[in-house]
């Protein structure tokens, strides 16, 4: 399966959705999770993951706390906030609209 770059503007959506499943995750887990759920199609670049997480911290969409991994290593765990949940809804519906529109354009070829 060839790996795809994540389309621009959707990284936030993917991270938010991943965290929305309720678990707290650290950066590596988020990246893995996206990769796994997308069945290895989407590959998160570390170079964009961490700046994106910082952005979301500023916006207050996620919160971070230090915790320990299963192997007892220090890691920063991210969790969705109420504002983040709202944002996710907005991004999902916006994404849907865009995808539908693009689909229409492609089908009326």
């Amino acid at each position: 399966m060839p790996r795809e770059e994540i389309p621009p503007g959707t990284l936030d959506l993917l991270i938010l959705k991943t965290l929305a499943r309720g678990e707290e995750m650290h950066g590596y887990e988020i990246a893995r999770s996206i990769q796994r759920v997308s069945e290895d199609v989407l590959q998160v670049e570390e170079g964009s993951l961490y700046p994106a997480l910082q952005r979301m911290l500023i916006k207050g969409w996620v919160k971070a706390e230090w915790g320990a991994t299963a192997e007892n290593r220090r890691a920063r765990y991210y969790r969705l906030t109420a504002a983040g949940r709202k944002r996710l809804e907005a991004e999902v519906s916006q994404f849907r609209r865009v995808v539908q529109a693009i689909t229409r354009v492609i089908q009326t070829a």
Partner: protein
Amino acid sequence: MRSLFAPLLERLSELGRRVRMLVRRERFDRELEDEMRLHREMKEREFVEAGVSREEAHYAARRRFGNATLLKESSRSAWGWTWLENLAQDIRFGLRMLRKSPGFTAVAVLTLALAIGANTAIFSVVDAVLLRPLPYENPSRLVWVTEHFAFGPSTVVSADFPAWKDRNHVFEQIGAFGGTSGANLTGAGEPTRVSVTNVTTGFFSMLGVQPIAGRTFLADDGKQGQEHVALLNETLWRNRFSADPRIVGETIRLDGTSHIVVGVMPAGVRYPQADVWTPLALDAEIFSPHSPRWMMLAVVGRLKSRVEISQAQADLQLLTQEMDKEYPPQAAQFRGRETVEVIPLHELLVRNVRSLLLILLGTVGFVLLIACANVANLLLSRGIVRVREIAVRAALGAGRLRLVRQLLTEGLLLVTIGGMLGSITGLWATKILRQLIPASLPADVRLDPRIFGFSAAATALALFLFGLIPALIASRTEVNETLKEGGLRLGASPGTNRLRGLMSAGEIALSLILLVGAGLLVRSFLRLAEVDLGFDPHGLLIATAERPFTAAFDSQQHAAFFQTSLDRIRNLPGVKEAALTQRYPLGPPHNATLMLRIQGAENFRPPQPISVTEISPDYFRVMRIHLLKGRIFSDSDVASAPEVVIVNEALARIVFGARDAVGQHINFGGPSAPWKEVVGVVADVREDALEREPVPEMFVPYLQQPSFTMAFVLRTESNPQMLLGAVREAVQSADKNQPLSATTTMDEVIAKSVAPRRFRMLLLGLFALLALLLAVIGVYGVIAYSSSQRTHEFGVRIALGADRRDILKLVVRQGFKLTLVGVSIGIGGAFVLTRFLSSLLYGVSPHHPLTFAGVATLLMLVAFAASYIPARRAMRVDPMVTLRYE
């Protein structure tokens, strides 16, 4: 409601998070690093589990992360503090660079501090004098009115004033003052001499000045039959009456006459200047055209709204011409051709200093330009030295904007430090410059946002001139070329060198202009010192006794007082000679007359007012004024003897021409006055000012024409000041209520009369020297730098057989060319600009060739020296050493 505020709240909490991050950014960095390390290690394990060798996995994980520093930075930049961190970094780096070259930093900062300080100081005076409005109510509507007659000073004849006041169509209010004189204030404590000015009753309310105690004058104050009233100046009130508010309503005695104090005016009222003001009521005799004596008035008016100055002038001119008809026939001599002038009051008060202040402002502006050019040169030299550092930075990915910003930050640091130092020294220096403010101008140097604004603007200009340009030039570095050159023969581009040369030529030009200006002032001062005073000022003590001027002026009694005092003073130990005079040279203004008549030449009219001075017989001997013809007065020229007069050379020439003055008969007291015989002609004396040509003068024996004010002049054996106490005792033993005023030495009088000129000269000279110093540093810098650049070339030349003297010539010629360009431009500039100095010069043309040539030579010599030092160094280049560096 909530929905309205929600976005705002969100914004606020977002800002809070950003600030928290800024405050704890070190912890933030550490945590980000931890987080990413974990990620990397997990990735590594993932690779290992996929069957990659441990080492491979390590590098693969690292590769995936890419540039860790960059990643960290871009994560951080999300928080929006990058600009601040960059700035902090630039400042830290800049400070480190400045610390590393303390010599450069000190020169640059000092240069800037001096220039900005000078500008701040001069500007604060300009601000106080020229820019700030007068501290009166609606001051822009206040105008000063005067009449110009065919002769003499501009003034308003008191008899014209009532018509102006009652019949004008242009003023809301109009007031006048005049008759400024001294009076002996007696009563409590030591008798004091105070100055008294008469003002019309509405004067202070017209200005809008409120008393700090009591009231100002009421309309009826000063009228005949009313009690005498007076207003005190706050300064007198504090010094003499210990600021006691109960003084209002009390009685003071002025020349023996009781006055009730009705109020105290603030010390800020400097116009009209006086210690005590008394009312000038319009029913006084002086306001009638038929009065035997008029008063010289100064008139101020408040224009009605929408009335122009020219309208006011026309209106008053018409009124004055109507008045001509009301004067008696004797007045026709000077009525009929008078003109009225109206100017803003502010303009009157500052007109003596305006051109001086503008000249000074221009001067310090030049100094600032020179300083900027100089520091720009310094920075450029450093920029060139650092060209390699900059190239390395550019190669490592620093953007041009970032480089400019870094270099600009260094400039900004210099300017800020220099600017702050300069503002502080400048404000301190304003204390000295305060004496530039005219005494009658109610203004003082004040800390004003405008002054700081000006300093900041000067600083910003400096930053722009020498921060930005070098930064732009340096940042244009060609990375490849520079790194290829290997760093040894890195040099400035020809363009940069030309710019630097041009700047130092400009510095030379500007400093030449300032030096020529200062040179002309010095020359004027020297010319003034050479002036033949006409008397010997050394060892002369002067003390003035002003007798109370009362209605019962008993001339015999006063003459007796002066004679007794003079005899006692003569006998004091240490006094060689003593005499009396109504007025001494460079002292208070003359009494002058236009009524001079000559027996046998009835149609004679004097072309200018002629001063009259009452003296005791030995005045000329004490002053060492030469007798040219005839005799001086003797003790037998008393009241009962035939009246005599002595004239000076100027009068003999103007009035009698080729005829012999001695033996002629003149008078000057009106048609019925007795004829006086001219018994002698004395040499001319500089009476008014050193720079003023001698005026025609007459001297009369004080016993034949008594005066109530006389000065004792004493020729002493040693320090004249030591005798002052004894003189006061001698005078007060004749009259215990008689104060002495204007006690001084003649040397002091002369020093004081040239003090403003001296101050101007020193000030301009100081700035010119500063400019010269900066320009020399500039030339030295350019030549030293460019010859150090050419060390390799010189080495090759010497190796190829060039004479070392040729190298010397090569370098010196470069400096010479630069100087020549600067000097030529400077001479042209000075030729155009020095005419603005004309009003400050004495006995020297603004284009005085010797000064121009002298200054040009001086600059050439100094610039030669400045380029000779680096040239010597270049000459000693060892070809082996320089070539080995290849």
